[in-house]
């Protein structure tokens, strides 16, 4: 794609670059007017996009079928409207029916899949030996299965972590810390990727490197 040629596109690219600089000004000068303005602009534009999307969604998924005579859609409309009584202290109780409905459905749906996906299959995978795998597969299996047992022992609070039980819990704690270190390393990668994306964008807008 060539560098934008339309005035509005060029303006958009420069506004993006300036907002990026304004946001990063926080790093150098803490809270300042440029940062605050960019932050508010971001929130406002995100909110605007959300409203437009919500209106489109309601029109397509609720209003259109209702206009075609499918009166079942009145139920979610009423439940949705009930939610808007939340700001009014006197009528707040009405919104609780919507909330309880959402929690009930959400919990039921989640538990249905979670038992198998997050518990049974994970335990089976942790304690099942590889069939004819490489030495690394066996190392992984032993590491994961022992780590699993040690970490579970660390989170067992009904038995005090002392005597013979001290060592597995201690090892479990170290393995847990190792895992958190890996997780944090990935977090650093994520943050650096975000920053590199912004640097790349600025270089493109300033025509130092080609537009994608």
């Amino acid at each position: 794609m060539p560098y934008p040629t339309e005035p509005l596109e060029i303006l958009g690219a420069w506004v993006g670059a300036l907002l990026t600089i304004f946001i990063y000004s926080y790093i150098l000068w803490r809270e300042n007017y440029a940062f605050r303005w960019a932050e508010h602009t971001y929130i406002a534009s995100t909110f605007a996009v959300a409203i437009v999307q919500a209106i489109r969604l309601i029109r397509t998924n609720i209003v259109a079928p209702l206009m075609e005579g499918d009166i079942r859609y009145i139920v979610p409309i009423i439940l949705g409207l009930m939610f808007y009584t939340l700001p009014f202290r006197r009528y707040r109780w009405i919104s609780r029916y919507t909330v309880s409905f959402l929690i009930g459905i959400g919990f039921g749906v989640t538990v249905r899949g979670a038992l198998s996906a997050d518990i049974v299959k994970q335990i089976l995978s942790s304690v099942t030996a590889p069939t004819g795998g490489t030495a690394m597969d066996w190392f992984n299996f032993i590491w994961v299965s022992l780590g699993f047992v040690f970490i579970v022992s660390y989170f067992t609070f009904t038995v005090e972590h002392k005597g013979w039980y001290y060592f597995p819990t201690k090892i479990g704690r170290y393995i847990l810390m190792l895992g958190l270190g890996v997780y944090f390393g990935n977090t650093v990668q994520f943050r650096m990727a975000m920053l590199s994306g912004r640097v790349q964008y600025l270089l493109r807008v300033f025509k130092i490197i080609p537009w994608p």
Partner: protein
Amino acid sequence: MTEAEKSIWIKMAEIDRRIIYWALFLLLAVPFIHPLMLPVSISETTKSLYDFIEGLGPDDIVVIGIQSGVSAWPECLPGLVAVTKHLVSRGVKIIVWGFYTDVDMTMNAIKARVPQLKWPDEEVGPGDYKYGEDWVYVGLIAGGEPSVAALADDLHAVIKADYFGTPIDQIPLLSKVKGAKDIALVITSDTGDYGWYYVRQWNSRYGTPIAEVGIAMIYSEFIPYYRAGQVVGLLKGCRGGAEYETLIKSPGEGIQRMDALNVSHLLTIFFIIIGNIGYFATRKYRR
């Protein structure tokens, strides 16, 4: 301890954050201006996804679920683009939807980088993807896990029309699909929890293969699911994108960004070492 007493060790332990940020910013810029072309090794999880898609063909339908926002483009977009290019090269049918409000912007960004995907009003040439027959963009879908579950059960109950408002029964590709059983693969791109929703509601209940093209933090959390066979492949953020670009021999923004990432990680390690040397050298003063 007064300022005058501060030794070089203390200065090492207390480097001004502004120096770190400026060093980082300038070092990140260098590889974009003068690419270092450092090699990218291929992870097992990336190769696994590549192999899986290699096994798909024009009779298969793949769902791309975009649950990563515009803010995560540097991490997720290279992978999404590379995977979409691969799907297009295999002739696989594609359905795209998303649960984040800025999904339209991400779709436009993918389309700009995969020009074979054509909107309904665009002219279709040889090798292009005709809208409605080869690919469909549903747009935003509301709701969390219950919506993902409902999509798996009956797509038509949740989606009434595509992004352009065309009723679902008038779209040839969507009229072929009833639910999760008709989908060969779900590629989910996440910054949050949606990947788990697909694993729980699509894979666990219907056995639909799932692949994750998410941010780097998601990768660590998905490794157990990959080991358990619940996920067929994972791309680790921008790095995963770079690996996939290497595999499909289509260098893009992932590979461009890898040099910058490598340099930034080296700088981070350098400052960690400097800070720790300073800390241990000055421990006696602090006591």
